C-alpha cells in the first residue's frame, strides 16, 4: 500500500502555495452511536485551491463536510477556521463566516419557492421589509450565470431532482463566501449543466476561494482537483497533489484491499432462465429499454454510479416502481404490475438498499422482521391467520445462529442492533419462505468487514443451491468479485455486459465513467 506525506506542498492552484490555510482539521473523530464514522482525520484547505475528497460510499466524506459547516459536532480533535479555534460551530455561524455548502442530501424546503429557498436565512431587507424585487434580480443573476433554466417562483417540491440539485448549488453560490463546499454537486446533472458549474468553480478558485469538492466522477476530478484527500473507512489515507494521483493509485488507495482472499469463490452452475426483463422503461429516464435475463445458479451483478438507475430497475422488477413500458416475466409468466405482493407470490425476494425506510420495522422484534414477508406461509401461520409463534421463534434462533447476528436477545428490535446486524436481520427475510429469485440492492451498506463476509457467504450458498441472485452495488469490487455476469449501467441504460475474464476493474471503470477518461487513463 502506498503511504504518502500528507503535508506535501502542492504546485498547482498558484495562489495556494504560500497562503495560510483557510481551515484546518486535526485528529477529528466522530461516532454515531457505536459506529465510528471518522477516525483521527486531518484535513486542510487553502485559498485558491480545489481540494477533492475521495473515497467509497460510506467512507465518511459527507460526515467530514457536515463537520466543516457545523451541521455535525465532532467528538474529539481540533477545528481551526481562518486561524481561529472553533469548537462548537453552528450552521448559522459557519455561514456567517463565509462557508457555503451544497449538501448531498439537499437542504431545501419543499413547500417554498426557488427564490425563497435561495435566500433562506439571508433574506435581503429594506427597513425590515423583504426586498423582493432586489432578491429576484440577484436570483436571476446567479441562475443566468450558472446557465440554469429554473423559474425563480417555482415551488421546489414540484421540481425534478436535477433542478433541485441546481437550486441547492445556486443557494450556495448566491452569497459571498470564502469557502465553498460541494458534496457531489453534479450527481444528477447532465454533462452540459455540469460543465457550466465546473467552469464556475474554476473561476471561483481563481478568485481565491477555497473549494472542497466531493465527486465520484473521475473526469471532474481530473479537471478540477489541485489536491486530493482519500478517505477509507473513516480514516485519512493520503493527501496528494493532482500530478501524483493517477486513477489507478486513487482507486487502490480508496479500496485498499487485496480482493482475492476477501471474496468467496462462488461455483457457477447455470440453470434455466427464471426471470426475464424486456425493454423496461421507467419515468424520468431512470431506465431506458433495459433488457436482461436472470438465471438460476448464477449471480448477476449490476454496477454503475449512483443515480444510474440500477436500484430503480430492481425495484421495478419487484413491483415497487411503475414502469412506463416493457415486460417483466417470471418463469414464463408476465407480472401484471400489482406490486410487491404479486412479486413475492411469484418467488421474488427483494432486499432494499435503504433498510431504514423500506427494509425493516425498526421497533418490532427480530422475529417479526424476519417473517414479515412470510405471514401467509403455512410454516408461520395457520390459514394466514393464527401465527405459529413457536415456529417463528425457532426460525429466529436459527437465523441468529446461522448469520451470527449479535443481539442482546431474541426479542431485541433492530434499532438496538448495529448497522451490519440490522442488515443481516433484513437478509434473514430471504430464508423465510421458498424464494427463487433474490434481488439485493447494496447488500453491504454500512456493514463492517466481518459482516460483509457473512453476507457474501449467504449469497454464495443461495447461488450454489440453484437460486437466481442479482446484486446491485455501488461498491465496484464487490460486484466485480461476486458476480458471474456483470451488467454496467449508465444514465438508465445498460452500457455493457461483462463475463468471466472480461470483467476487470479497468473495463468496468471505462464503462462507468465515459470512455474518454478510461481511455486516457489507459
Amino acid at each position: 500500500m502506498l503511504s504518502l506525506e500528507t503535508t506535501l506542498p502542492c504546485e498547482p492552484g498558484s495562489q495556494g502555495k504560500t497562503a495560510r490555510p483557510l481551515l484546518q482539521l486535526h485528529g477529528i473523530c466522530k461516532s454515531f452511536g457505536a459506529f465510528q464514522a471518522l477516525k483521527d482525520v486531518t484535513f486542510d484547505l487553502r485559498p485558491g485551491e480545489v481540494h477533492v475528497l475521495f473515497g467509497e460510499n460510506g467512507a465518511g466524506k459527507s460526515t467530514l463536510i457536515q463537520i466543516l459547516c457545523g451541521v455535525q459536532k465532532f467528538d474529539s480533535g481540533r477545528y481551526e477556521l481562518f486561524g481561529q479555534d472553533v469548537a462548537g460551530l453552528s450552521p448559522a455561524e459557519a455561514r456567517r463566516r463565509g462557508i457555503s455548502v451544497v449538501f448531498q442530501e439537499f437542504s431545501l424546503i419543499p413547500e417554498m419557492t426557488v427564490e425563497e429557498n435561495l435566500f433562506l436565512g439571508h433574506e435581503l431587507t429594506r427597513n425590515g421589509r423583504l426586498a423582493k424585487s432586489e432578491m429576484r434580480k440577484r436570483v436571476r443573476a446567479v441562475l443566468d450565470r450558472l446557465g440554469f433554466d429554473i423559474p425563480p417562483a417555482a415551488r421546489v417540491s414540484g421540481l425534478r431532482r436535477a433542478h433541485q440539485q441546481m437550486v441547492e448549488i445556486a443557494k450556495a453560490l448566491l452569497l459571498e463566501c470564502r469557502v465553498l463546499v460541494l458534496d457531489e454537486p453534479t450527481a444528477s446533472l447532465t454533462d452540459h449543466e455540469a460543465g457550466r458549474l465546473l467552469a464556475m468553480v474554476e473561476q471561483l478558485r481563481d478568485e481565491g476561494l477555497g473549494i472542497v469538492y466531493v465527486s465520484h466522477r473521475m473526469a471532474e476530478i481530473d479537471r478540477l482537483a489541485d489536491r486530493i484527500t482519500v478517505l477509507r473507512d473513516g480514516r485519512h489515507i493520503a493527501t496528494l497533489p493532482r500530478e501524483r494521483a493517477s486513477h489507478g493509485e486513487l482507486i487502490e488507495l480508496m479500496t485498499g484491499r487485496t480482493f482475492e482472499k476477501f471474496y468467496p469463490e462462488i461455483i457457477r452452475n447455470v440453470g434455466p432462465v427464471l426471470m426475464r426483463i424486456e425493454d423496461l422503461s421507467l419515468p424520468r429516464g431512470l431506465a431506458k429499454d433495459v433488457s436482461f435475463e436472470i438465471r438460476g445458479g448464477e449471480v448477476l451483478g449490476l454496477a454503475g454510479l449512483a443515480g444510474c438507475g440500477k436500484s430503480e430497475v430492481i425495484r421495478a422488477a419487484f413491483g415497487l416502481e411503475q414502469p412506463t413500458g416493457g415486460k417483466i416475466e417470471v418463469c414464463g409468466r408476465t407480472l401484471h404490475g400489482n406490486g410487491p405482493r404479486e412479486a413475492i407470490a411469484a418467488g421474488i425476494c427483494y432486499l432494499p438498499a435503504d433498510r431504514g425506510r423500506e427494509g425493516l420495522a425498526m421497533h418490532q422484534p427480530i422475529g417479526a422482521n424476519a417473517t414479515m414477508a412470510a405471514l401467509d406461509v403455512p410454516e408461520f401461520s395457520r390459514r394466514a391467520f393464527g401465527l405459529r409463534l413457536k415456529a417463528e421463534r425457532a426460525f429466529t434462533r436459527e437465523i441468529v445462529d446461522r448469520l451470527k447476528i449479535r443481539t442482546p436477545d431474541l426479542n431485541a428490535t433492530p434499532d438496538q442492533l448495529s448497522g451490519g446486524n440490522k442488515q443481516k436481520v433484513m437478509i434473514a427475510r430471504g430464508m423465510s419462505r421458498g424464494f427463487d429469485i433474490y434481488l439485493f440492492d447494496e447488500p453491504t451498506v454500512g456493514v463492517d468487514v466481518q459482516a460483509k463476509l457473512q453476507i457474501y457467504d449467504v449469497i454464495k450458498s443461495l447461488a450454489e443451491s440453484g437460486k437466481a441472485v442479482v446484486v446491485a452495488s455501488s461498491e465496484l469490487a464487490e460486484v466485480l468479485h461476486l458476480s458471474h455476469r456483470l451488467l454496467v449501467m449508465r444514465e438508465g441504460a445498460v452500457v455493457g455486459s461483462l463475463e468471466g475474464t472480461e470483467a476487470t476493474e479497468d473495463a468496468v471503470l471505462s464503462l462507468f465513467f465515459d470512455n474518454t477518461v478510461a481511455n486516457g487513463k489507459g
Partner: protein
Amino acid sequence: MFKSLQLTSIRPRDSLMQLALPAVIVSVFLGFGLVEPAMLSSGNIANVLKQGALFFFLAAAQLVVLITRGFDLSVGACVSLVSVAASMVMTAVTATAGPVTGVVAGVATGLLIGAAIGAINGTLVAYGRINPFVATLATMSIFGGLSTTISGGFPIFDLPRTFTFAFNEAWWLFLPAPVTIAVLVGLALHVVLSSTAPGRVLYLLGDSPAAAHAAGLKVRLHLCLAYVASGLLAALAGLLMTAQIGSGEPNLGTNLVLGSIAAAVVGGASLRGGRGTVLAPALGSLLVIGLSVGMNLLQINGQLQPVVVGAILILGAAFDMLRSRAR
C-alpha cells in the same frame, strides 16, 4: 448455541420501565388508601374495576389505531350514537318480540353501528388518504349530531331489565359483568394483536408503512380494519355504559375522546405508532380511573382535578419520550 447472544444493559433497564407504571398505579391506590381507607374497600375496588372496564374499551379502541400511527376522535360520538340507537331498537323490539330478542337486536345494532362508523373512518383514512385527525374530527361531528337528532335529544328510557341486568348488575365468572367482558375482550384483543397475522401487520405498518408495503402486506386494508376494530370496541363501550346508566343518552360519549387517547398513551402506546400492547389501555385506564376515584374520595376540589390530570398527562408523555430516547 447462544454464544452469539451478547447480553447488554438494554434489557434490564427496559423491563424496569415496564414495571414502572404498575408500581405507580399500586402506589396511587395505596397512597389514597392510607389517607382514606374506603379506597381499598372491596366495594370501592369493584367500583374502580367496573369504571376501569368501561374506560378500558375506549382506550383499547384508541390503542388499535394508535398502533397504526392514527387517532380516532370519533369514539365519543360512536358511544353516543350506539347508546341512543341500540336503546331505541331495544325498546321497540322488546315491545313486540319480548326482551331477549330485544336485547339481541339492540346489541347487534350497536355493534353494527360501531363497525359502520369504523369502516367509514377507515375508508377516509386508508383509501381517501385524509389525515386521521381531520377525518375522525368530521365524523365525530356528524355522528354526534346524528345521535342527538334521532333521539330528539331525550334519553331513551325503559330499557329491558334483561339488558341492564345482564350487562351491568350480573356477575359473570365471579366478576361484575363489564369487568368480565373487558377481561374477555382484552384477552381476545391480546391474542389478535400478539399472535395473529392481521395483528402483526398493524404493528409493522404502524412502524414503517413503506417496509410493510415492500414486504407485500395489505397496508390499506389493514389500516381500514384497524378503524373498524376501533369502532367495534367503542360500540362495546357504548353498550356497556348504556347498561350501566340504564338509558340511552345522546350525549354519553361527548367528553371521553381526549381522555381515552391520553389513557392509552400514558399506558405505553405511542403516538408514533407501532407500539403498545393490551396492557397499555388496561394500565392507563386503571391509573386514570384510580386517580379520579381517589381524588373524589379524598374530596379534592373538583375544579382542581383537571389540573392534576393535565399535569399527569404531560408527565406521562415526557416519560414516554424518555423511554423512547433511552433506546
